[in-house]
């Protein structure tokens, strides 16, 4: 007869079960939602170039009069990093809204903010790099609603 709780050996399993659950979830998110393989607890670091160094974010602010690209300011770096590593609606929306708040604080009007997440890919022979857009997401501000592509 197996005494499950007798020696307490069952106590060794929950941490590894949790590791496996999170690692499998991470793989699914990399395949379905463009999560960077370096992140999310799947142990995909040092396995691919698709990490922080080769992803970046571009911000475009539109008003009725102008359309400008913003350099990502220091105050938005954290939000931009999250969006580039996991370009989900939630992180892209958060970044777009934060960019709009910042623009308005500086007295500039904003009708929409477009957030683009880009990735740099490498071919092998010859070794060359190309840019590819992973996602584009536009946040509209009054009166238009929020929409994603």
């Amino acid at each position, binding site marked *: 007869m197996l005494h499950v709780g007798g020696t307490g050996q069952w106590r060794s399993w929950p941490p590894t079960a949790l*590791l496996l659950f999170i690692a499998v979830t991470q793989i699914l998110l990399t395949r379905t939602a463009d*999560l960077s393989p370096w992140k999310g607890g799947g142990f995909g*670091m*040092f*396995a691919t170039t698709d990490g922080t160094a080769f992803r970046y974010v571009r911000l475009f602010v539109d008003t009725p009069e102008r359309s400008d690209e913003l350099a990502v300011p220091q105050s938005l770096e954290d939000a931009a990093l999250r969006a580039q590593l996991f370009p989900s609606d939630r992180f892209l929306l958060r970044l777009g809204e934060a960019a709009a708040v910042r623009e308005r604080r500086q007295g500039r009007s904003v009708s929409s903010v477009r957030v683009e997440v880009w990735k740099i890919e490498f071919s092998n022979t010859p*070794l060359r790099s*190309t840019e590819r857009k992973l996602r584009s997401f536009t946040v509209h501000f009054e009166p238009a609603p929020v929409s994603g592509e």
Partner: protein
Amino acid sequence: MSVQLALRLTALVLLLRPMGPWTLRPLILAAAGLALLSPRVLMSSWTWYGLTALLAARIVADWPLPDNHVYLLMYWCLAISLALGAATPDRVLMTSARLLIGTAFLMAIIWKGMLSPDYLDGRFFRVTWLTDERFGDAVQLFGQLSQPQLDHNRVALRPMPEGARLVHPPSLEEPSAFRHLVLASTWGIFTLEALVAVAFLCPPGKRSSMAQHAALLCFCGMTYAIAPVAGFGWLLLTMGLALCRADQQVLRGVYVGTWFLVLMYSEVPWAHLMVAWLSSSTPI
């Protein structure tokens, strides 16, 4: 003895690499500091349940930014909590350490060998050695590339818009030593990680136990000389030390020595010093 030492080193890992937002960081540091100072706090499962919860909160708060070793540290703290509540903490912690290391390395191998499109063909290390400035000294040392060659290659690797091509694209300068470095790092790391995964996931036995220690010590001693993630190395070595039996004093000493070697790797710019020394000793 191994359990207490492993717990102390875990607390030290938490203190040496403070982590998390300011709301969590003081709590993590306080718990780890108290664990180091008080044997009662160190050996209480509640301390480690608390640290597990704080690390989980850190991962959620910062998601998806935390590195993989932060996840492993959280699993390890959970393993310690559960082990300290058992009748034989050392045996439970040994099994946990073995399973966690084996599974983490198995996932790393699955990523490198099956899921990643650019690892086994050498692209990952080719690009990383050439573009990541943190490895600049190591590439000069082992790849025989000069700083001007590295600068030239970095310019040549600047990305083109999708679909665009240059009529005369700049060619990369990759001496044979560099190509050997790419080959050795790609397959050396893959092989070493596979050995660790197999050794730790095999059924426990005297022979597999020695293979585990040899593979893990070899991996940590070599990898963290270059890889700038000392926290990962310390954690793996701490978990490896937890696998030592009471009578394996020499092996415990080797683990502690390697732990401090990784600390030296992270604090002494040895590759930079060697490059500087070699360039000053080379006759003009």
